[in-house]
């Protein structure tokens, strides 16, 4: 294992920034959700990396955290996309800018 922890952390940070940029700049609600997923995933990467390089890898803490996080993220995606679909049914668009303008 020659990769230092810094590498993983930097990758995670970059991914987080990319996700954040996506979430903030895209108009399509689904793509905003995609950005959020990316951010969550980068956090997972951090968790696993810290667990792996941490002093007690046998305690499985970070790993467990990541697994729970994955489960929660799945739930988040399901609910989020459900909401988007429902909004689409209501407003006939997934464009957040338009939705803002229509105000309801």
């Amino acid at each position, binding site marked *: 294992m020659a990769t230092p922890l810094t590498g993983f952390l930097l990758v995670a940070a970059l*991914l987080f920034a*990319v996700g954040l940029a996506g979430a*903030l*700049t895209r108009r399509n609600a689904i793509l905003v959700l995609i950005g959020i997923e990316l951010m969550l995933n980068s956090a997972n990467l951090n968790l696993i990396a810290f667990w792996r390089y941490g002093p007690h890898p046998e305690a499985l803490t970070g790993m467990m955290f990541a697994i729970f996080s994955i489960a929660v993220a799945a739930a*988040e995606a399901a609910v989020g996309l459900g909401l988007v679909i429902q909004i689409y049914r209501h407003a006939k668009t997934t464009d957040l800018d338009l939705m803002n303008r229509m105000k309801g």
Partner: protein
Amino acid sequence: MTFAFWLFAVLTLAGGLAAVLLKNTVHCALALTVAFAGLALLFLDLDAQFAGFAQILVYIGAVAILVVFAILLTRGSETPQEGVFSHNWFAGLAIAAAVFAVLAWAVLASAHVLPHEAAMPTVTVAQIGQALIGRYVLPLEIVALLLTAAMIGAVIVAMDEKERAK
């Protein structure tokens, strides 16, 4: 830094960037799966087999498909005529860049305190299982509850108005 790490990292970031930048929504979703796959590979690189496979199973097998379905259900598969980026995209980009700058600074500044090498942990699935129903049984139960609630919620939210009225 190994070759494998570079490969996976580039894959992940390329997928992530594509997911955020591409015009066509379905392409974005497909790029997202690439990012997820890259992450799973990074997990494997970190000896977290179980988490890696779970990542593939959940994210590629379920979340990506869900996203794709949502895109199709909202007729989002056609490339929109007007711009794909929000009118205040610049602000968003700036914020993201700032966040990355801060994070990168923090990581790099503390690089010397972070460990470079670690002992190879031997984690079997059995251990994870024991931990899940041992030490982490409460979180497990809570997550189970949360998932159930989310499932019911998603069904209700996505359900037809008329059917709900019935």
